[in-house]
């Protein structure tokens, strides 16, 4: 899952990046509105965390422009302006959630999880996929009730595939959603991680679709 953090306060930006990174997300970060619009317009983010008071271009305009160009990724507004008129304006501009500063990082993480889940069409915080079970709250994966120990990159890959289970996910899409913007994008690394994952979970859960990518089998026994 790839997240864009738009926050002009350097300290808060750093904290957000660190907390989201720890929670297993690939995080890109910008400090002004213009760059935020450009990145959000060109890169496929799973969630955007958007401050409203930004240099060069304010957050609401950034959001409105994204929506006008049909960029429909979930956006969580994070702002000190906590009046209901501000919230309504934010939601009307196309935000999906609104969090007022100061906030608890756990609260923000919960909202991010909720947006990721909703965007991929899952209602509950636990995603099941055959014998696998992903608890998005604790970032833990179990297989037939046994915890599967995963590295951060393995978790990112598996969580993305499980969020989009039943659908073919291309290598490019995986690269775009799992790594930060300035990461060395070599799609071979994906194959390496898939190979590692297959050693930890039943092999037939992640199906390779030749020439297209990977698909998470919701009913691996039938395949």
């Amino acid at each position, binding site marked *: 899952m790839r997240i864009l953090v738009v926050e002009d*306060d350097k*300290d*808060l930006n750093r*904290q957000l990046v660190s*907390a989201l990174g720890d929670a297993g997300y690939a995080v890109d970060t910008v400090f002004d509105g213009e760059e935020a619009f450009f990145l959000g317009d060109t890169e496929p983010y799973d969630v955007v965390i958007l401050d409203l*008071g930004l240099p060069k271009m304010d957050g609401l305009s950034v959001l409105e422009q994204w929506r006008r160009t049909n960029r429909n990724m979930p956006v969580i507004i994070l*702002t*000190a*302006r*906590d*009046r*209901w*008129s501000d*919230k*309504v304006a*934010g*939601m*009307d501009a196309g*935000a*999906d*959630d*609104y969090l*007022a*500063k*100061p*906030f*608890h*990082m756990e*609260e923000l993480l919960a909202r991010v999880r*909720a947006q990721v*889940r*909703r965007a991929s069409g899952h*209602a509950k915080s636990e995603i099941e996929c055959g014998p696998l079970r992903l608890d998005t709250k604790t970032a833990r994966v179990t297989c037939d009730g046994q915890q599967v120990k995963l590295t951060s990159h393995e978790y990112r890959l598996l969580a993305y595939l499980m969020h989009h289970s039943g659908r073919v996910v291309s290598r490019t899409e995986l690269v775009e959603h799992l790594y930060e913007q300035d990461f060395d994008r070599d799609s071979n690394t994906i194959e390496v991680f898939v190979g590692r994952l297959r050693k930890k979970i039943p092999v037939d859960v992640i199906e390779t679709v030749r020439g297209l990518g990977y698909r998470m089998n919701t009913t691996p026994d039938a395949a």
Partner: protein
Amino acid sequence: MRLNSLASRLIATSAVWLLLVLPLAGMLIYRLYRDDVQSAFDGGLEKLVNAIALDSMNAAGTEPVVPNNRYEPLFEETHSGWYWQIKPLDDPLARTFVSASLATATLDVPFEKKVEADAGGNRWLNAKGPLGEPLRMVEVIDTINHVTGAPRYSILVAGPLDWLDSRLSSFLARLSTALALTGIGLVTATLVQVRFGLLPLQQIERGLAAIRSGEAAKLDGELPVEIEPLQYELNQLILSNQDIVDRARTQVGNLAHALKTPLAVITNEAREDKSPLGAKVAGQAEIMRDQINYYLDRARVAAGVAVIGRSTEVAPVADSLVRALERINRDKGVVISAACSPGLRFKGEKQDLEEMLGNLLDNACKWAKKDVELVVQSVVRDGRTDTRRLLIRVEDDGPGLTEEQRARIGKRGLRLDETKPGTGLGLSIVTDLVQSYRGTMVLAQASKGGLSVSLDLPAT
């Protein structure tokens, strides 16, 4: 009509003026007329006495000639009040002649009463007639054929003062009627004048009422030049008042922004730090956050309500809040059913209505299982001011509160469940805002089982 009003002042002063001036004018006119009538009467008497003196003193012998009455028919009628008399002053044996109307009586002689003669040699006296009737008499002294040193005669003519009095009293009656009618006419004219003249003031009164009730934002309409400066200043005052409040709100917002981001940084940093210092800083930062929120809210409340002339349509505010909250809570599947007829207006700031409705709906959404209901109505109450009231009810189907909890939360607006996200000051700002608008907030058990919050606020 109240005593302390411009209209009653104008009417009272003009009434006092009329009460003073009309009787004075009446007295003056009466006096002039009386003098006029009296001098005409006296002139008549003088003419008569001169004619009789001329006729009676042009005698061949030593006795006066009894004048033929070609002067006044009433000299012939007994006790008519019109008399003449020719009386010798020096010769006690000489005869005294009187008019037929005097019969056997005689009249007092002014000369003998030491009445001084005027410049024309006439002596004037008011005396009583044979029947005791008041008379006005004039006397000349003459001798037969005007011979100097001859025995003198007093020639006098008397006329009834009653005649004069009846003329005067009939004039007085007519004069009084005329003056009374004039007075009534003037009072009526004053009433009309006051009414018409004060029309612009009534216009201002209506305009101010419209501003107070929020129907108008400023004092409109074309007013007379005398009041125009007032209108201008008033509109400027309203504008600057709104300006000040808007500026205060903006400043509060800026302060919020300036404080809250660093506070978020401190909080996050402290919570990362697992040392006792970190815990301490985190705890203190939380207190700071609550205090900042509380006092920012108070500042907003204090800034808002003094402004007159603001009114907010409820339906658009409710619609956008419902839209936003349904979007925020869409994972939970909360359905907000809002019943708010269009045209209902809240007498106050839009932001305040948003704060109250937003916090109530937000609370309801947090606790609701599935359903949140918003009902907005308006009623008209008895009372002097703010008779139109807005009734807002927000209900949810959540767990609700016990009676004791409701009493506590209603008083302080404190957070009951620390695990629910949010600062918990939501209801406290609602309480403050409701109080500042002199409204009421009632917590009750909803029919669906959850909490029901009812607000009673001024409407327009």
